[in-house]
């Protein structure tokens, strides 16, 4: 069937609400408004206000309430409008969701799913545009997912709800309108492994989330010059499927990492380090990174474009490592 990333996500939530009475959706404007990005449109009418709960603007309270409800047997889906707002709930995510199982010696578990929008590209400036999923991927106790395809938008949520531990799902704002085909029987997907989205022999482009389409476009352009890039979609940022990355690098001997986060201390830095630690002697060129400029995201279109990883930047990096 023809669908969009947004509709696939909505279908995943609808399916979960239908099949599991422990599931409920909670967050700012998820009900009557339909979700600030329209993901949950119509679900309030279908499932009622007990299971599609509009919350006050109290990120810490409703994220923490999700943690408490999860400990008491529910399977909450908490939506936070953007990753920047999730900073207001960081205490709950870091100090409670990620630690309670360990701190209690395995007595407690937090089977909670937190969904949030991430990323730039829509001229929303410095408080609605950042890519901080790499920060969350630093934290033991969490699982961090970044669906970049319609199939993953549909399939990661049910897998996350099946997981006994807290899972954060980062939905890049530029992907919601992405249209494409989805199998009629699409359902849960694996959430442990990276996926090779394009095969190639000359270099490995490693990315995730909102920059997957950018990396694929760059691979198209490189192919015109006869450079065949393999494109890896990490999909899960924690745990990181380094096996798929290292195996690819062992055949291409060149790696470029594309990450919308800031370069310093980024997920791209982690991937680079793992390649350096485990595959240094496979490399025919130094690892390259294409990341966001180290500025708070600016508003003006030309400045925002300049701050973000673009197809041209990836092509330049790809040529540099293969040249």
């Amino acid at each position, binding site marked *: 069937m023809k669908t969009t990333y947004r509709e696939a996500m909505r279908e995943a939530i609808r399916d979960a609400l239908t099949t599991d009475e422990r599931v*409920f959706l909670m967050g700012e404007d998820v009900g009557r408004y339909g979700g600030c990005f329209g993901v949950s449109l119509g679900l309030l009418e279908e499932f009622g206000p*007990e299971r599609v709960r509009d*919350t*006050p603007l*109290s990120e*810490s*309270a*409703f*994220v*923490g*309430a*999700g*943690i*408490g*409800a*999860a*400990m*008491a*047997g*529910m399977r*909450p889906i908490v939506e936070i409008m953007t990753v920047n707002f999730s900073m207001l709930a960081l*205490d*709950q995510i870091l*100090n*409670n969701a990620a630690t*309670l*199982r*360990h*701190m*209690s*010696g*395995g*007595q*407690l*578990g937090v089977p909670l799913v937190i969904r949030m929008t991430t990323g730039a590209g829509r001229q929303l400036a410095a408080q609605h545009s950042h890519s901080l999923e790499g920060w969350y991927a630093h934290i*033991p*106790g969490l*699982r961090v997912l970044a669906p970049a395809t319609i199939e993953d938008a549909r399939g990661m949520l049910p897998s996350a709800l099946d997981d*006994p*531990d807290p899972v954060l799902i980062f939905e890049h704002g530029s992907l919601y309108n992405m249209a494409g085909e989805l199998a009629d029987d699409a359902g849960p997907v694996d959430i442990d492994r990276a996926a090779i989205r394009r095969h190639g022999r000359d270099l490995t482009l490693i990315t995730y989330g909102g920059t997957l389409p950018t990396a694929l476009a760059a691979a198209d352009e490189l192919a015109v010059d006869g450079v065949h890039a393999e494109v890896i979609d990490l999909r899960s940022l924690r745990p990181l499927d380094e096996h798929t990355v290292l195996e690819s690098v062992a055949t291409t001997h060149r790696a470029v990492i594309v990450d919308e986060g800031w370069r310093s201390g980024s997920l791209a830095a982690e991937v680079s380090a793992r390649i350096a630690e485990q595959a240094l002697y496979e490399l025919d060129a130094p690892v390259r990174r294409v990341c966001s400029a180290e500025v708070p995201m600016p508003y003006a279109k030309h400045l925002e474009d300049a701050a973000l990883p673009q197809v041209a930047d990836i092509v330049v990096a790809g040529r540099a490592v293969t040249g």
Partner: protein
Amino acid sequence: MTELEAKLRTELLTGMVRIRRFEERCVELYSASKIRGFMHLYIGEEAVAAGLLRALGPEDAVVSTYREHGLALARGLGMDVLLAEMFGKRTGCSRGRGGSMHIFDASRRFYGGNAIVGGGLPLAVGLALADRMRDRPAVTACLFGDGAVAEGEFHECMNLAALWRLPVMFCCENNRYAMGTALSREHAETDLALRASSYGMRSWAVDGMDVELVADAARRAADTVRAGAGPCFLELRTYRFRAHSLYDPDRYRDKAEIERWKERDPITQLAARMRADGQLDDTVLAEIDADVAAELDRAVAAAEEAPLEPVEDLTRHVYADRG
């Protein structure tokens, strides 16, 4: 005064003595380096734990703070699992991963042991939400100190719980100091019950040095919440006789102030009342002391002998065990 009431008084007294002696032994064990880390003593505040938790049944939930030894004992956890935890042993309630500040018992719905001031309140809201959504007639007692009232999470949670009419008993253990900062130096309005009432919930201030008053107020509050009236707020006016933690040189309080509060020691107050009513004599008191001392000796010996958690299990319980 009926026999039943006399029995209740004896139980309250025994409950407080158990906590007092436990804490005194903890100081000795800390001085002997058997216990390390931060340790916060409950001495002086025993009436709160002993009085409050009598109002709860096994189906109810408790969320507390890092000053939780007394509450854990009053909730039915054994001295042995607490001491073993503080000794960092495998038989500790959190298998040596929590220590003094992170006591948990999932089977008794005792959810910590939270060492971020205010951080437990959202969990309590979520536990109560789950109970409500699953039609379980449970109450969640959420304990926190006067310091938490200055945190944003406090106000978010008061609002959310009142808005959704959730079955939470917010219990503020007002011991007049947020670590070293006096109530009047921290709050523009020091009547905490008054502030809670602004959220549209019933609130009471209670003499937290009088265990019988605490027990009465707790029963009234729990009945109200259980009857579906939404959350309520109890301000328990109490005082800690010891420093904030064993690291604290206690420079910020007047010694005369401490002595004045000691005149209202909850244990001697109740004991004197019982003696006056012919319910207590030296023999009974000696029996209580001997029983508690024996229980403590057994717990210390067991903690000494218990094995350490193997280092090979260091990373266990970060995520659920799989496979």
